[in-house]
């Protein structure tokens, strides 16, 4: 009997809620900009930073724009549907923020000729599809320099996602930076085959620390490896965003992805009609890559890190300047030369000092 009564009450409550609400109206005066994310906005890494940039667009352009995002979109057929849905619901500019969205973006772009698309980290452009990426390797080189200064065991543990050029380039830049101050440094890599899997990332960090690494760095999106470093009393780096909150004693610095300025610039360009498809690769100089404060390290290490950062920003130093040897000891970039764009974009070898073989 009691059950029946309370059920009746719920039905009434629900009915009243229904009556009190009215269909909301949506105004169409503003320009709509869409964002497709591969992870949840709360990942505190990759997607989190893209979402901060979306908020920067809203802040900069106020009520002239309305932004929409779809999070945790699987790469593959689902992403094409989401992109097409955004395009068909009045979004005039759509940012697709993961490499795996490349072909789906191009397919959707073919169907929606007057919608503009911006695809992150891809290499295929079209009349209405531009691409953009950041030179994260600049930050990784600085992180490597710091690691070379701070490490006592000379061993770096690297939690990596997938063996794609972007990630391999980061490992190599880190190694070159570390060896620039301490030629005994080495890197061990664990591939977790995921961009976001806190459990796996954390386990990988634990295994690496057990093997003697006293610096943990990662090319995955969650703060888990850094949290493990904090708990185990070793040092680490934040990835994509400043993760100092998660590791106040362990974070040395963080490579911060700052997409905000670019998103604002492209949204403005679309609104005033000057948007054109382009392929940009911005770094420290343009502010797309930033370093979080240098913390938890001796002052001489921080000073060297700052100096390195300035040298890269001003163009005096390119992380991939020869002599660079691969794992077998073969010289791949001659002394004084800089690795060409082809080698950087398609990097599929480890430099000297990285342990193990690259999965191929």
């Amino acid at each position, binding site marked *: 009997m009691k059950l029946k009564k309370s059920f009746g009450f*719920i*039905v009434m409550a*629900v009915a009243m*809620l*229904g009556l009190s*609400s*009215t*269909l*909301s109206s949506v105004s169409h005066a503003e320009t709509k900009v*869409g964002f497709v994310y591969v992870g*949840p906005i709360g990942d505190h890494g990759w997607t989190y930073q893209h979402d901060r940039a979306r908020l920067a667009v809203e802040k900069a352009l106020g009520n002239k724009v309305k932004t*929409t*995002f*779809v*999070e*945790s*979109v*699987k*790469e*593959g*057929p*689902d992403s*094409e*549907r*989401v992109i*097409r*849905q*955004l395009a*068909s*619901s009045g979004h005039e500019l759509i940012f697709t923020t993961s*490499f*795996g969205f490349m*072909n789906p973006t191009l397919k959707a772009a073919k*169907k929606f000729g007057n919608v503009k698309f911006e695809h992150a980290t891809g*290499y295929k452009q079209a009349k209405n599809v531009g691409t953009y990426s950041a030179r994260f390797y600049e930050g990784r080189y600085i992180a490597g320099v710091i690691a070379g200064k701070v490490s006592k065991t000379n061993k770096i543990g690297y939690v990596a996602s*997938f*063996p*794609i*050029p972007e990630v*391999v380039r980061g490992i190599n830049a880190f190694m070159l930076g570390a060896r620039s101050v301490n030629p005994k440094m080495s890197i061990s890599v664990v591939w977790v*085959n995921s961009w976001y899997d806190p459990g796996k990332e954390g386990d990988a960090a634990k295994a690496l620390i057990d093997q003697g690494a006293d610096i943990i760095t990662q090319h995955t999106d969650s703060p888990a490896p850094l949290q493990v470093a904090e708990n185990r009393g070793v040092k680490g780096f934040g990835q994509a965003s400043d993760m100092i909150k998660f590791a106040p004693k362990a974070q040395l610095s963080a490579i911060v992805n700052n997409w905000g300025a670019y998103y604002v610039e492209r949204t403005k360009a679309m609104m005033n009609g000057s948007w054109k498809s382009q392929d940009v690769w911005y770094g420290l100089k343009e502010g797309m890559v930033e370093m979080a404060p240098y913390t938890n390290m001796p002052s001489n290490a921080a000073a060297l890190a700052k100096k390195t950062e300035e040298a890269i920003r001003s163009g005096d130093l390119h992380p991939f300047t020869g002599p660079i040897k691969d794992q077998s000891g073969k010289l791949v970039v001659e002394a004084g030369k800089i690795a060409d764009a082809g080698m950087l*974009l*398609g*990097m*599929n070898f480890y430099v000297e000092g990285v342990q193990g073989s690259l*999965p*191929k």
Partner: protein
Amino acid sequence: MFTLERRVEQSKSWLVFSPIMAIALTILSGIIIFSVLDKDPWMSLYTFFIQPLTTGFGFTELIVKATPLILIGVGLSIGFKANVWNIGAEGQFTMGAIAGGGTALFLNTQESFLVLPAVLLMGIFGGIVWGMIPAFLKTKFNANEILTSLMLSYVALLILSYLVHGPWRDPGGYNFPESEIFSDFAMLPILLEGTRLNLGTVFALLSVLIIYILLSRTVLGYQFKVVGLAPAAAKHAGFDRAKLIWLSMIISGGLAGLAGISEVSGTIGQLLPSVSPGYGFTAIIVAFLGRLNPVGVLFAGLIMALTYIGGENAQIEIGLPAAVTGLFQGIILFYLLACDVLARYRLRYKPFLKARDRE
């Protein structure tokens, strides 16, 4: 204390009515959740469950999304009926994609209308082979197929990952882990211009029809059912249990393989490190949601697909978080199982009486 008692007479109408009741309760819960989230509940329900179906594109997308779920779910339901627990459809799906997709890559320069049939047959074959391994281990060594089929899923996923990172990587793709794009001769024809509705959907409908006939009109189908409901009776009647294990793994593996290759050469058009957002696992829910009945699976697949597409739509239109999709899937399943249980059993309140008092 509450106890469940099997109802002596089950009401036929309640058994039919319980899924409808479950959906009604889901909607009620949805209204409460949306209100708590400070969203207009009616508008939210509309964008979640109805609006995706109001455009031609949305409607075809629903079918595209449901197609692999139905293909796999129909196959699984046969095994589940016979108490053969194939949990590894994800692996059979992936193997179908690998075998069929590999064929497509191998024949990528051939301009022949025989390419597509070869690709499809190899896809089915890949799924069958991957389903036969647990069948072999089960019948030969009595190894638990839940474990072996599940573990083989991870093996298949890693084989695919290896192939697209290594030997099958697109040579012109800057070392990114993606295969070349398939030629048009390896792609399933699109049924409706401008949409992604392809021949895979026809396979799904045919599989529903064929499995329905198999289960309801053939001796073999009868054997599947008896083995599941009354193993002792089946043994007594002389049904060959090993044969039924082999057959159910081959059928479910083959259909999962067909789903895999249909996805790859229907909507994706190339091999990627991961070709499935967990269809093989979701299809297990679909099979049970459809009560292991092929026609039921057809509807369950469509409902499940609607929760995905509705979730995306709700994010775009009213800014609901993505987690709402999973929430709705959980709620629907919860109410469906609860209503089923209550249709078959009744809840009785038994006060803690002393044993003597009850006599």
